[in-house]
């Protein structure tokens, strides 16, 4: 099976349980199980080749420019982890089927579980480190969902949040580390990175990369001082604890260290950091585990301790230790997952996990007792079980490890760790299953149905089998070790054996087991001492740190964004101006390279008008009507300016937009107060004035220096000038750019314009279907009303002008390709002509004579423009390619027809529709109670009166 499919299967399969939720629990389970089984079988097809030394790869270019390729590879290390993930996954799925109660949403659970499974398989098969990072984050997210699966439990939510915070932060660090690594090597492919040990270790970036990567690995694998999240993650359902927090996810950190072992290990830094962290975690975890009364908490800390053990082995940097690490990863996965499942069974049956309330379960639950005992003894390191073999190898390695110049520090620490490990393992058996009891269990427990104990029972098989016949595992362990070492050090020639002779490790092992038993016999006084001893509570520290940062973030955010728009507009202006000033002071401003154009007297006059109008706005702004007049003046002179500086199209557009904008604002002012009240004090106005002047000054400086220097690099405009006629068939380059070169932009923009108009229409509708409607209909009149709201002079004038305006519109439209004009301007001109009719004879009169809805006109415009663009497809050209030709129909002159004209027609229609729909919506608000569509165009009509009289 393709590696792509193996990774994709869980993700695709994740859809199934969610969809099958209605089909029942069995259907959910079956779908999940089959998907995982299929992926497992797919993986199995590669086993012979991989064990024969072949590396299976699958490559797909995705974003080669970013170094982001979907490359997968399967080597023995990947095979071991993928196998663990999928096989234990199968057992967990079977166990979860029996474990979850009817109240639990099984589809949701299995969907999360498959997402997690896919992410894990993705991590271990990724060849590209960037992709590995994506999968890494996915495991953090999916584990967040799984830990918090019981949403009603506060511990579940808190534990999930803590796990996400810690592993997520580690993930961020890891991203940094991996990017550094990729930068050192110049490739993001793991297979390439792994071949560049010397380059990486010689690089000055080695240490930062190492620290960042280890942060990622340590947080994921719960190494001291990041170990505290793992026990809190135990609020998850037990299948999750067994799967994520013993067998797979927490081993992702170990996987990463093993994967990068050939290039990162061997340096002093690696040795000190990894070995120290591992040893500390091992001892600390083991000591805390002994005193935990919650079965799952005990197992959680024991997991922390064992992860520390493996980390320590990876840290020492010898081939023998690597082999021990690989072996222990396998062994730990089997006995610890089994132990978690037995804890879950006890919890499920006795309804408590509190060890002090249990005891004597051996008679009530013999099967569970048998499984738990074998697994726990393996964890304690008792001979003939697999835990003994790898722990013995660890002690052997510890006996030969020298740290901080001391020969005895490591062996002693390792022995203490092993001793406590034996003690808590014994306690798990003795206090739960032996003795009298159960002391205080809420319900009388018994063995669960087979569906629940079969999974741990199956996991026990390798525990015993490998424990008695270690040579069975040896070829596989050696192959994986070879892949881990990657040629960085020599392959160890040791063998997996039960009896190594009278080695120091054997004595340490004996001390550990006997000492462990002794500790347990002294448990009661020790536990009292432990309870009395002051200890830092990791959760409180974590919560304190989180609270500090939340407070900090809240303080900053509320300081800037307290809900006052004016406040952050001011802060924004000052900040941007400040940044600009900083750039101005520190950058190298270009000296003026252009000559200033001479100032003419006309230009000076226009400038004075513009500046005066803009200035006046500030001073008379409370009188809103006056502001609109001044705005009109500003707009007029802006368009005059455009015309003066060789932009006739802009001038035409600006002036017509100006007209519709002012009409729009007048309509709005019909409802809004006519005056702005005086509210700001002198201090505030002064402050705003200073900010405004600073901003204005900054913009002045920026634009002035821009205007006085030439382009930094040649503009692409020359291309447009050269090809406007040749390629677009038009002389008006601006129009050709709009409808041809950048037609796609324009297409988007008319759509935006149409959407804006429809938004206005929708908001008006919403207003008119709310209580506001009654308020509007019944409102009084602002002031004395005009005698004739629709005066004769205006009606006659607009009526006379309408055909002229339309003709001008058509003219502007048709000449647009070669002379100033075009669809935008023509649309605005025509819209103004129509608006004039509304103004002259009233909304109701005009509306009754309006045949086509404006939405339709917008739609038609977009459609026409789009169809013109699509037309190009029929000639094998891309969307919006244009064609043109010259025609002659006697007796007319020769004229040009271009497909761009069809496009421009679409622009025209969309602009007319959008402008009219906006203005019409505003007008509709103006209706009053008792208004009825007048049948006459004007209020006073002499000809009408004559008719009546006559």
């Amino acid at each position: 099976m393709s590696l792509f499919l193996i990774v994709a299967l869980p993700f695709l399969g994740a859809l199934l349980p969610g969809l099958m939720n209605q089909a029942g629990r069995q259907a959910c389970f079956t779908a999940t199980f089959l998907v995982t089984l299929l992926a497992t079988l797919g993986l199995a097809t590669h086993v012979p080749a991989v064990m024969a030394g072949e590396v299976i790869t699958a490559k797909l270019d995705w974003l080669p420019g970013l170094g982001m390729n979907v490359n997968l590879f399967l080597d023995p290390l990947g095979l071991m982890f993928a196998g663990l993930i999928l096989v234990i996954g199968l057992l967990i799925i079977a166990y979860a089927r029996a474990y979850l109660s009817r109240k639990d949403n099984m589809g949701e659970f299995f969907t999360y579980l498959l997402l997690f499974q896919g992410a894990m398989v993705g991590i271990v098969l990724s060849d590209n480190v960037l992709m590995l990072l994506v999968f890494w984050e996915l495991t953090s997210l999916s584990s967040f969902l799984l830990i918090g699966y019981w949403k009603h439990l506060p511990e579940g939510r808190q534990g999930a949040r803590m796990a996400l915070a810690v592993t997520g932060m580690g993930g961020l660090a890891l991203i940094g580390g991996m990017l550094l690594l990729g930068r050192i090597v110049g490739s993001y492919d793991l297979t390439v990175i792994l071949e560049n040990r010397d380059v990486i270790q010689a690089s000055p970036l080695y240490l930062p990369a190492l620290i960042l990567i280890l942060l990622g690995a340590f947080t994921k694998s719960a190494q001291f001082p990041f170990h505290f999240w793992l026990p809190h993650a135990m609020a998850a359902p037990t299948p999750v604890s067994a799967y994520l927090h013993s067998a797979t996810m927490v081993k992702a950190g170990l996987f990463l260290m093993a994967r990068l072992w050939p290039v990162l290990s061997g340096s002093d830094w690696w040795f000190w950091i990894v070995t120290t962290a591992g040893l500390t975690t091992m001892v600390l975890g083991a000591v805390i585990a002994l005193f935990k009364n919650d079965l799952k908490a005990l197992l959680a800390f024991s997991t922390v301790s064992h992860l520390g053990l493996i980390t320590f082995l990876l840290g020492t940097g010898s081939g023998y230790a690597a082999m021990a690490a690989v072996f222990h990863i396998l062994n730990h996965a089997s006995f610890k997952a089994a132990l978690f499942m037995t804890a879950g069974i006890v919890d499920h049956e006795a309804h408590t996990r509190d060890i002090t309330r249990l005891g004597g379960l051996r008679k009530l639950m013999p099967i569970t007792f048998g499984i738990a005992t074998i697994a726990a003894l393996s964890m304690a390191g008792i001979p003939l079980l697999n835990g003994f073999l790898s722990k013995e190898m660890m002690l052997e390695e510890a006996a030969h490890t020298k740290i901080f110049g001391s020969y005895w520090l490591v062996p002693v620490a390792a022995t203490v760790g092993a001793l406590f490990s034996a003690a808590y393992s014994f306690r798990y058996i003795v206090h739960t299953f032996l003795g009298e009891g159960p002391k205080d269990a809420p319900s009388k427990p018994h063995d669960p149905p087979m569906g629940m104990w079969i999974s741990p029972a199956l996991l026990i098989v390798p525990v015993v089998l490998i424990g008695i016949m270690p040579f069975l595992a040896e070829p596989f362990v050696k192959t994986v070790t070879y892949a881990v070492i990657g040629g960085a050090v020599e392959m160890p020639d040791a063998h997996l054996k039960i009896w190594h002779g009278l080695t120091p490790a054997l004595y340490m092992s004996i001390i550990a087991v006997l000492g462990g038993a002794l500790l347990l016999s002294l448990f009661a006084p020790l536990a009292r001492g432990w309870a009395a001893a002051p200890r830092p509570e990791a959760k409180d520290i974590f919560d304190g740190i989180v609270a500090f940062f939340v407070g900090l973030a809240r303080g900053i955010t509320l300081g800037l964004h307290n809900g006052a728009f004016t406040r952050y507009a001011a802060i924004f202006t000052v900040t941007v101006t400040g940044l600009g000033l900083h750039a101005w002071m520190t950058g190298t401003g270009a000296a003026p390279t252009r000559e200033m154009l001479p100032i003419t007297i006309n230009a000076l006059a226009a400038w004075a008008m513009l500046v005066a109008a803009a200035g006046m706005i500030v001073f008379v702004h409370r009188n809103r009507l006056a502001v609109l007049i001044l705005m009109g003046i500003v707009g007029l002179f802006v368009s005059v300016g455009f015309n003066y500086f060789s932009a006739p199209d802009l001038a035409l557009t600006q002036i017509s937009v100006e007209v519709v904008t002012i009409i729009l604002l007048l309509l709005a002012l019909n409802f809004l107060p006519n005056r702005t009240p005086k509210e700001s004090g002198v201090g505030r106005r002064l402050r705003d004035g200073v900010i405004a002047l600073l901003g204005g000054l900054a913009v002045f400086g920026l634009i002035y220096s821009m205007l006085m220097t030439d382009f930094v690099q040649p503009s692409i405009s020359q291309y447009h000038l050269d090809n406007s006629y040749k390629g677009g068939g038009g002389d008006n380059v601006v129009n050709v750019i709009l409808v041809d070169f950048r037609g796609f932009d324009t297409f988007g923009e008319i759509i935006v314009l149409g959407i804006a108009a429809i938004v206005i229409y929708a908001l008006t509708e919403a207003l008119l279907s709310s209580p506001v409607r009654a308020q509007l209909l019944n409102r009084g009149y602002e002031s004395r009303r005009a005698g004739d709201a629709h005066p004769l002079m205006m009606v006659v004038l607009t009526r006379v002008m309408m055909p002229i305006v339309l003709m001008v519109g058509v003219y502007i439209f048709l000449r647009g390709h070669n002379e100033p004009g075009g669809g935008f301007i023509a649309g605005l001109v025509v819209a103004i002509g129509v608006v004039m009719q509304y103004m002259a004879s009233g909304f109701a009169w005009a509306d009754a004579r309006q045949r086509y809805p404006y939405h339709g006109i917008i739609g038609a415009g977009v459609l026409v423009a789009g169809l013109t663009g699509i037309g190009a497809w029929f000639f094998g050209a891309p969307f919006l390619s244009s064609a043109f030709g010259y025609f002659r129909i006697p007796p007319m002159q020769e004229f040009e027809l271009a497909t761009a004209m069809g496009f421009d027609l679409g622009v025209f229609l969309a602009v007319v529709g959008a402008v009219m729909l906006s203005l019409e919506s505003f007008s509709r608000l103006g209706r009053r109670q008792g208004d009825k569509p007048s049948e006459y165009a004007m209020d006073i009509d002499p000809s009408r009166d004559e008719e009546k009289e006559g």
Partner: protein
Amino acid sequence: MELLVASAVGILTAAGIYMVLRLRTFPVIIGVSLLTYAVNIFLFASGRLATDMPPILRDGVDAYTDPLPQALVLTAIVISFGMTAVVVIIALGAWLSCSDDYVDDPELHSGQQAADPNPRGGSFR
């Protein structure tokens, strides 16, 4: 001439910022419109200033001003109308349905309103 254009844009910006910092919706909308003028001229000016060189191709003429900023600004002018209209209808909706035309969070003004007998600057009759 560059000095005139630059100073005009600066003054439009300053007036726009001042108006944007007012407390009611209408002046803020006017302020944004003034800033729109400023930004449009700024964009247009990025093609540098030239007189009597419109980008309309003519035989025998080979000096034209930069057409590209003009095309960009042309659509910007039209779109800015659409955006102004949307903001105006939102402001109008707030005023009509809540009689509130403050741009700031109303809670920040609760004290101020109590002191002012006619807090809304004229009411909706």
